């Protein structure tokens, strides 16, 4: 058979410096499989690769060796879709602040490093395969109340309700959540308070969100509890791991909105 030298072996450009790494990656074939950490030696990694490109390179090599590549979620690779996310050496999205896994580059690591790569671990995020988890619990929390009900076409003129700039900015800060789940992965309790509080704060701050203010927070908190997330003990790990820097004060706000809603029932 005509076997060309595989032009597909992606490498750094000639002459560029590379590092050698040892990866220990969680491999789990399916939800029922027990799973285990598996070690891979990965030589010649360019520091300019992103973490996911490094996994791409590993996978290319695994495929050619006849092994199953490592499954991981990813899509936009520019830190906005929220699809990617793994725990790297015990840190959700790895060592760099405010950086998703796809935006983390290998120059954050050194030659000879051993890197442990694990999926988000939470009962409410069951492992689908390897590093892929099921985060549909987040979608159900949003479905329970994370919206403002507007029938298409029925909206009033946009300028009919001015929103003070500080309010709009604060709402925006909370609206930047990408739903990646790092907060849950980092929380020692597996709590999704930061995620839920970001949406409640975003919508409850705005005048447009006022009519559904109480039902929104009640239903979302109920949904969150029903999904089996842990409770919040205000450790602050979520904020540290959050690639968008959603502040811990949002959790205070969620509590306040919730107390307000249950006392007005």
């Amino acid at each position: 058979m005509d076997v060309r030298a595989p032009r597909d072996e992606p490498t750094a450009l000639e002459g560029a410096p590379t590092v050698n790494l040892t990866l220990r990656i969680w491999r789990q074939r399916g939800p029922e499989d027990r799973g285990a950490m598996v070690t891979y030696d990965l030589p010649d990694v360019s520091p300019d690769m992103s973490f996911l490109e490094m996994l791409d390179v590993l996978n290319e090599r695994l495929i050619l060796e006849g092994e199953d590549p490592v499954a991981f979620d990813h899509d936009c690779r520019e830190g906005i879709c929220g699809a990617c996310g793994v725990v790297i050496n015990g840190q959700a999205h790895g060592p760099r602040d405010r950086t998703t896994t796809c935006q983390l580059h290998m120059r954050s690591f050194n030659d000879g490093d051993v890197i442990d790569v694990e999926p988000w671990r939470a009962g409410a995020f069951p492992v689908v395969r390897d590093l892929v988890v099921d985060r549909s619990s987040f979608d159900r929390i949003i479905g329970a109340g994370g919206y403002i009900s507007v029938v298409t076409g029925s909206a009033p003129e946009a300028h009919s309700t001015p929103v003070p700039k500080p309010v709009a900015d604060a709402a925006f800060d909370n609206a930047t959540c990408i739903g990646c789940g790092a907060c849950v992965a980092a929380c020692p309790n597996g709590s999704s308070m930061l995620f839920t509080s970001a949406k409640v704060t975003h919508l409850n701050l705005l005048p447009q969100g006022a009519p559904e203010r109480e039902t929104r927070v009640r239903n979302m908190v109920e949904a969150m509890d029903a999904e089996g997330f842990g409770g919040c003990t205000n450790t602050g790990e979520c904020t540290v791991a959050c690639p968008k820097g959603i502040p811990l004060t949002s959790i205070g706000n969620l509590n306040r909105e919730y107390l307000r809603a249950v006392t007005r029932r």
Partner: protein
Amino acid sequence: MAVTGAVMLLYLLAHMLGNLKIFFGRESFDEYAHWLRSIGVPALHGAWLLWIMRALLLAAVVLHAASAYQLSRRDLRARPQKYSHRQRLEASYAVNTMRYGGIIIGLFIIYHLLDFTALTLNRNGVEGAAYDNVVSSFSVWWVTLFYIIAMLALGLHIHHGFWSAARTLGVHSAAREKNLKAVATVLAVLLSAGFMVVPIAVLAGLVD
């Protein structure tokens, strides 16, 4: 947890201030101990108010512990599979020791009640002779050590517990949170130090 914690915190403040009366001498301290048993008289009979307070506190402790137990169970369920690589936690020591600290404090309370309230474990053990009871207990180095460890745990517990409670009760402005953190630190230091001076003074021979 926030509400019961707040109740206990208020009690601890009063308790700590009362303890310091020991520096005014035996008579003053014993008199204070006696007064505690008769507040509310004559509106209330004898030690009724004391018993009401005790009931309230007991309820607070039990509810606080029960919620902590429930929360812990829920949290453990929320992460059935632990990370292989130990999680790198960014939070302070106080945050990460809430559970252990709580258990230490709980055990201490039991011992403390047997020592100074029920007097079962007190070496002096004379009802009404509060001053002597205190001195006799803290003259033993390991009792004092246990006391100090418990008070350090208490300080840490309050340090995180105070503003965590504030957030649970809905504080959500960054500026107010900063102030509350400062208050938490002051309260934590004040309470642990305030409680600790008594046994240290006894052991050092300043109170005898």
